[in-house]
């Protein structure tokens, strides 16, 4: 079971308190009703699914109930960073590249 740091509670807590909510930094287009098919496809269907660092959303559903973002290595399952919803995608990750 993973330990995940909730950036709102500022605590590292067991995975069972959290729920994954898919890829992060996929913003809903402001004028979504008028998106063309290609752009809507990109927004709604296309995800990166990387081997390595993924930026994803989690919700502290059995805690503070907040959604937040995380950078996780899909190979090791290691969380490199968690940060609040709305914050920019970090340019540098602590310990990235390390096993």
């Amino acid at each position, binding site marked *: *079971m*993973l*330990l995940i740091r909730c950036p709102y509670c500022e605590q590292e807590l067991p995975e069972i308190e959290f729920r994954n*909510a898919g890829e992060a930094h996929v*913003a*809903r287009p402001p004028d*979504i*009703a008028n*998106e063309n*098919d290609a752009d*809507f496809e990109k927004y*709604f269907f296309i995800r990166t699914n990387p081997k390595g660092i993924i930026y994803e*959303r989690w*919700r502290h*559903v059995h805690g503070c*109930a*907040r*959604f937040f973002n995380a950078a996780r290595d899909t190979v*090791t*399952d290691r969380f490199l960073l968690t940060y609040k*919803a*709305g914050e920019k995608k970090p340019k540098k990750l602590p310990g990235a590249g390390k*096993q």
Partner: protein
Amino acid sequence: MTISFRLANAGRLGRAKSVRFSFDGKEYAGVEGDTLASALLANGVHLVGRSFKYHRPRGILSAGAEEPSALVGIHRDAERKTPNIRATVQELYEGLNAVSQNRWPSLSFDAGSVSDLASPLLSAGFYYKTFMWPKVAWKSLYEPKIREAAGLGVAPDLPDTDHYSARYAHCDVLVVGGGVAGLAAAFAAAETGARVILCDEQADLGGALRYEQGATVDGQPGWEWAQATVAKLAAKDNVRLLTRTTGFGYYAQNFVGLVERLTDHLAQPSPDQPRERLWQVRAKRVVLATGAIERHMVFGDNDRPGIMLASAARAYLNHYGVAVGRQVGVFTANDSAYWAAVDLKKAGVNIAAIVDTRDNPSGRAIEEARALGIELNLGRTVIRTNGRLRVSSMVVQAKKGGPERTIPVDALLMSAGWTPSVHLFSQSRGKVAFNKTTNRFVPGDYAQACVSVGACNGTDGIDPSVAEAFAAGEKAAREAGAKARKLSRPKAETSESWSRGMAGAAPGAGADAKSKAFVDFQNDVTAKDIRLAVGQGMRSIEHVKRYTTNGMATDQGKTSNLHGLAIAAETLSKTMPEVGLTTFRPPYTPVTFGAIVNHSRGPLFEPTRKTPMHDFAVARGAVFEDVGQWKRAWYFPQGGEDMHRAVDRECVTVRKAAGIFDGTTLGKIEVVGPDAAAFMELLYTNPWQKLDPGRCRYGIMLREDGFIYDDGVVGRLAEDRFHVTTTTGGAPRVLNHMEDYLQTEFPHLKVWLTSTSEQWAVIAVQGPKSRDIIQPLVEGIDISDEALPHMSVRTGKFCGVPTRLFRMSFSGERGFEINVPSDFGRAVIEAIWKEGQKHGACMYGTEAMHVLRAEKGYIIVGQDTDGTVTPDDAGLSWAVGKKKTDFVGIRGMKRPDLLAKGRKQLVGLKTKDPKTVLEEGAQIVADPRQAIPMTMIGHVSSSYWSENCGRSIALALVKDGRSRMGETLYVPMPDRTIEVEVTGTVFYDETGARLNG
């Protein structure tokens, strides 16, 4: 009377109490402290089982958890028959009843052993080759026959009467393994004051000190030092000692699973005592002191009973006081087996000969064996053995061949070297590294905050192990935050040392050898099988493993993996690291389902949710159905009614007089804030801004893909306050969906969301008499049709308690839904029931509710929709705000496929024979005479007998359904084809006149 092999002057059990037990119905005596294996050996019993595939007689290989052969069933009582228990770890208790496995009719004569003769058919990959064709024979012949013939124990056929418990634990340092290294590490960590957990799979800690005679630690004999150290640790408040506890799984972030066996060693466990306890430990640092496992020699007929690991014979002698034979041979490639011969010889057991594949071994072990006059055969090998149910002799030959010499033995000890137990390290995702000098895999790169010490780290010798472990224990504690003065470590000495040993087939068991040289005893895999797999094109060790099943039995190849790898590597002309080691996965040793499932079974499998009116419904005779976790009243039979009659009566009564229904399980969400209406606009398809406070609207929620996600009636209580209802099962996900958008996409909106599902009890009163029934109970609300028309909401008092009173209907009748605080639900429904009876009302359940709504064509999300249904498909376009510029799903709805012709649309179906009720889920076709497979154009989503309509009714999703009104379609069933007519979705009161009273 059996002859005893218990020696008076050996072992530690001394004059322990005698313990009676039975094996295959025969009575034996052992002593307290025995394992089943040591007690059987003390009685001269070596034959304990038949092998998995060839039904060959098998004995006891080891004295520990790695045992692949001595698997028995332990039958405590009718319910508790545990198969595949390793006799080497099962502690003896008074009355223990063990039975051998995989033999018929008896262990000494097994009819299935003919498969040994038919073994060419059962070679590597036989599943894939021999039994593939014809296809039908697999199901009827091969599969059941193979299952019958090949296998181990029989699974118990009654529910487990034991119970199991679970605990979470946190510590600074977890030490897995309580041998000399584990004890030294735990002691050092404990001295710093750190919180330490030390676990070991054995009943007594001490590990290899159990049999290593010459070792001293801190001047004490090794075993005594171990027991003294255990006593010191046990006295410390910061240490938790767990014996009979296996660390079986190493998961992410130092999360380690342990299973503690609490009653399997007891003659009469208390019924209150859990059988096992699952520990889920989160450790800041983990110290692995899991030791090493001795490998057997791979040579012809190396599986006969009486052939065992040298270290096992030593453990039986030095701890249990049991001689494994009277005329013992030794076959080795390694020094440590000599010590077994030396110990046995000193205890008075005759050593027939030591056969060593090495030409010029040297060192104290060899010297001491020589000094005792033991015959040494250096540079020689054992090419086969004889004996039917027990080894009777070994056949010795020079490595290069030549004359054979047969040496009679009644036991044969073997040692090919030691394999560090890197299982948990590997599970932690650490990478093993191959050490060429010592020919073994040892921990390389670590992935977690963990360290390996002692034999499992490839550290040879007792003093280096203690030094390494002590330092590692102290360091781990300091890294975990402990601060203490410098500690001084215990000093250890021993006469013994490790040597390189060998991996793979012994000389004489090469590719041209005829006899079976077993690599994996539990899965009956021979050296030949592995060569065959390579010969047939398997290159990766992972493929060789799966093709031959080497290492895939419940022992997970503890003794066989390295041999298998070495043989594959040799056949491929590659080095072992080039071929690679297979991955170790949890569990280290088998874990019971009981420990994993734990309390989560029966009524504790998941929570049961009951409404505050549950007991009231029970008292009215309700039959309940499960809806998610809820218990919901399904129908209320009276006077011996069956379900059909009860539901008919309830449906008719609601439309003639009134019915009372518990609607508490509906999800309820309070949407509050200055931007509440704006938020509702974004989350639902409907327009909300112009909905007046006090009015309600049926809302549809979509996902971004444009499909219906949920629905429900929403009441606007004030400009800034909505009372949202969701489907019973949908409440948590709808709130999650709302929170997601509010927190991440629309965070600028000032809105607060609160689940109020548990706060309100809801009682629906539906039917022409509904207003008369509730009138006397309402305070401060005018409930006339003029003041409170259909789809309105008011707050006031009901039976003296605060209420949100909805005028709404899911039955098509004049109806009310009365929300009161949950605590008052029971009292309020009783008051309504009292009034209702005056007007001929009935209680009705979910089945009647479903029929009534279907009569009106009201959909149920999840039944009449399935996640691919748009509002238009469901005939609900009217609920989509045409002028809205944004809501979740607005763009998804406009995807080409969702606008295309030929979509399935919700329609009604009437069977041509009104008495025929369709099956929900049945497929619909246009032409019943077409060839199979037919083109299916839709399916029945809801279907009931409607007593009010005097006929069956159904809702269905049918391709282009709305343009097929009046068409005849067909529902093919196994026994007949049913003709149906496509209709509108409203079967009763099409104009909706009754809604308005």
